[in-house]
């Protein structure tokens, strides 16, 4: 089994081996304590430039990538492009070519259309990180979810995971299904029939089940992942009303009784309180929503480190040691 990560880009989880995923998670773990220090910075990517190219509004993911880059001492530049002006403005590939001319060491892209990162990867020499593309994949979200699960359950293999909500339009669900089943978890998904297509079961070779009722998916689950309902999709009439959604597909405290003892609840955020998740759960002891955010930083540091370091001679250990020395001098 391959236990290193030698890829140039991180475009999705689907192509990754279990070994590559574990290497990413292990690397993320080594970065976790940097954020717990008083001086939250290591010189690992000093002199490197990371461009966050966001074609879709996002506060959480963009901030996470930006802080991750800065804590590694990279220069982080954020570019937000409104996709509503896509027809008048510069094309995606022209934007990419222009950025490429400024010699970035990594481009992080978020786009509302599936496949945009792949198109960039074809023409760019810089490594590309997919920070979410349409309904396709969101690999760093799946990695941070896995890191959070591993932190609390010490393993992933053999766990039962329920994913609840709008599976059809969710890049988070896809990346999580690939990652969790590849590491040996059993995944059950459930949501409104309009949002859980039957062919979804073919996304994993084994370990994936579709359920009609969320109760059936939650039964015995060690981990419950709740997906965000996109209010803006309401016009497409995938379900009758928010009220009905909350009643039939929202996670409430009584659902937790069906789950395994000590079950944990996660949500990629931002949450719609009282719709897909009740406040009692979101703010309760089983909720790991804020741990996810913290782990998101570690995962993104690991990804940037592995992709943007290029031929940088020192590994993560060296970088950490060096930073400690420098901080010692500075203070």
């Amino acid at each position, binding site marked *: 089994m391959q236990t290193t990560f030698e890829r140039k880009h991180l475009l999705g989880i689907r192509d990754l081996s279990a070994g590559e995923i574990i290497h990413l998670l292990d690397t993320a773990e080594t970065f976790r304590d940097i954020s717990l220090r008083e001086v939250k910075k290591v010189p690992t990517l000093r002199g490197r430039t990371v461009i966050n190219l966001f074609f879709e509004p996002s506060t959480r993911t963009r901030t996470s990538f930006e802080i991750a880059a800065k804590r590694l001492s990279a220069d982080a530049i954020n570019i937000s492009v409104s996709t509503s002006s896509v027809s008048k403005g510069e*094309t995606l590939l022209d934007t990419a070519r222009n950025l490429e001319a400024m010699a970035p060491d990594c481009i992080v892209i978020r*786009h509302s*259309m*599936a496949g945009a990162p*792949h198109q960039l990867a074809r023409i760019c020499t810089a490594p590309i990180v997919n920070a979410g593309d349409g309904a396709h994949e969101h690999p760093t979200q799946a990695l941070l979810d896995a890191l959070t699960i591993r932190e609390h359950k010490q393993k992933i293999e053999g766990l039962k995971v329920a994913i609840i909500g709008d599976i059809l339009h969710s890049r988070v669900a*896809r990346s999580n299904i690939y990652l969790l089943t590849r590491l040996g978890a059993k995944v059950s998904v459930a949501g409104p029939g309009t949002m859980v297509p039957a*062919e979804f079961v*073919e*996304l994993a070779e084994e370990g994936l089940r579709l359920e009609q009722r969320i109760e059936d998916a939650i039964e015995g689950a060690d981990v419950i992942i709740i997906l965000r309902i996109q209010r803006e999709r309401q016009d497409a009439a995938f379900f009758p009303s928010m009220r009905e959604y909350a009643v039939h597909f929202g996670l409430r405290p009584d659902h937790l009784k069906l789950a395994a003892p000590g079950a944990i609840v996660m949500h990629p955020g931002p949450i719609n309180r009282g719709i897909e998740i009740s406040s009692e759960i979101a703010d309760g002891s089983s909720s790991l929503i804020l741990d996810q955010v913290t782990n998101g930083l570690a995962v993104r540091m690991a990804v940037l480190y592995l992709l943007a370091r290029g031929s940088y001679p020192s590994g993560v250990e060296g970088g950490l040691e060096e930073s400690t020395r420098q901080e010692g001098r500075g203070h």
Partner: protein
Amino acid sequence: MKLLIANGYVVDPAQQINAGRNVLIEDGKIIGLPEKGEKPPEGTELLDATGLVVAPGFIDLHVHLREPGQEYKETIATGAAAAVAGGWTSVCAMPNTDPVNDNPAVTRFIIEQGKRAELANVFPIGAITKESAGTELAEMGEMKAAGIVAVSDDGRSVPSAGMMRRAMEYARGFDLPIVDHCQDVSLSKGGVMHEGRWSLILGLRGMPAAAEEIDAVRDCTLARLTGARVHLAHVSTRGALASVREAKAAGLPVTCEVSPHHWSLTDEAVENYDTNTKMSPPLRSREHVDALLEALSDGTIDAIATDHAPHHRDEKALEFDQAPFGITGLETAVGLAFDLVHRGIISLERLVELCASNPARIFSLPARGGLFKHAPADLTILDPDCEWVFDVTRSKSKSRNTPFNGRRFKGAAVATIVGGRLVFLHPDYGWITQSKYREASA
């Protein structure tokens, strides 16, 4: 002026000829199919078809030539050049130009531009409804008088059954076939590829097979109601083929065509978000591709049509969701059709039937589709064993949007003759024109 195509093997399903014959041409017309070795009249020019197949000129029922209005994608002249380079002697041009071919002035313009290009014959197809908007009938009678051979709102299927019924009843009076792009838009709206496992993996909005199948049922049902001639364009689903099979069994005047990319690729080809795999109808799953191969073999499919849809490279360089539907097809179709022959799915005779005799019958093109005496001398000369690689940089089309660049083929159209003129000769087959009569007749 006389021309003899000597020593070839003639395959002409319309006259049930499958034999070594010469073809004698005078003033652009076929004079006869003399036996080999028969001495031609004095002063006859010679083309040597030794070892080659001589077929009636291939007719593509479905191309988009983009003129008038989108000449940056293709013109009638460049489209016709691509046609003859691919072995097509006639092309039928869909009306979704700008302006739409929904009136006789546009029809005449297209015919005129086709004549000026002096390559393939260009037969215009008129719109079913004004501006193909699906609400008012277009002037079918006037367009027929100007030269259209069929009517279609291709790309924008007629949205309501009521409108389609009217159109069929009206078209029937002018003996015009109705060509429909079967697609229930309420099901396919927003879709950019086939709905199934791959659309879910790729996170792209799917167009279910049902969108095509429902409209195919509708059109066959309306063919029964109205008695109109109905031709289903680029059929791509198992269910639509079942409808055609059933309609034919019931004796209804229903025919259908298939496009080469639909039997050559599956939706898996979209995996890398290459916009040259985006077309409508979309590449389907293996189940549907298998159904197409079955229908090619059992005769349910009547014609091979390219749906040649050129787009500028800037348009195809957009995000997959944003890029326009369609690929070029004129220069790769015959190669892809020979794949079927070499795989044993169809015979060579059936290939000629799908590309020549049936298309001529479906659109009632007089004296085309067979090597009839006094018919226009349109011929496609084939080498089933020619091995070649498609290099899109050498394409005669103005556009480059093909998923088949670099593909290896066995079997090609090596010479194309339109109205007795050699309009295309494969660069490796110069010998066809250089042999002496003495050698050829020996």
